């Protein structure tokens, strides 16, 4: 059964709502949001509250529920 979550872009405060299948991976969720906001998916992580959502886990594994609010956070690398 599909669920709908809200994703907040921490860089500009914009939000989107996304419909997700339980088998969708968190990586796919990040990719969908990053593509929408013209960002590079590999440079971001997704959080729910204080919890980092692991890229390989699925929506079901991560325990995401309908109406959850997630946040897309940049994961910068400096050199």
């Amino acid at each position: 059964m599909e669920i709908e979550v809200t994703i907040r872009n921490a860089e500009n405060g914009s939000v989107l709502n996304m419909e997700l299948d339980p088998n969708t991976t968190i990586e796919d969720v990040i990719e969908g949001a990053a593509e929408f906001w013209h960002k590079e998916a590999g440079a971001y992580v997704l959080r729910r509250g204080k919890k980092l959502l692991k890229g390989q886990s699925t929506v079901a594994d991560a325990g995401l529920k309908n109406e959850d609010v997630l946040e897309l956070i940049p994961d910068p690398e400096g050199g």
Partner: protein
Amino acid sequence: MPTKITSWSEYQVRERPPPPPERVSSHRWFTEDMDHIYREVRDELPLYVQRTAEEKMRNHSLAGMRASHEVMGLLLGGRFTWQGREYALVRDVATTELEASEYHVRFHEDGMEGLFESLDDLDFVYSIVGWYHSHPGIGCFMSDTDVRTQEGSFNSPHHSALVLDPVRREMEAYHMVEGNVVLRALGIYWDLHQDPYRG
């Protein structure tokens, strides 16, 4: 598995006057080029950094220098508009455990929850308006890795990168313009009831 976006909304940039000129200054760590561009646009700066946020970054870079590694964090604040021009305010910074060496830095995966906790503890609704990191002893510039980060994450007009060299006591800020990284003018501001900034 594909995802489906059902609706979205853009953030509405708020009108807010920038800090008044009598509560804005340059910084003694500015390089000559930074000081020059600060003086050129000091009445219409695109970026203002709160004094305490600047102190946190500077102290963080000095701590990293003593441990011989780079440090890094996120610039937290918001973007605003006033009389037709947009600017960004950095009101605080956040960092966490790092995976760092003399020439490389990123957040340690184990530190992410601590970073998120810092974000949740803020007393304002934040946007991440950029990032800072240090280059101990090698001067301020944007390396290839830094440019990739800027292009991949911080490519909007209000996004900035701050680089500090705690050995040379230098600071520069950058942003993206048509795919190139260029210097960005910034001012340090302080709140009405704070002591004036002394650097």
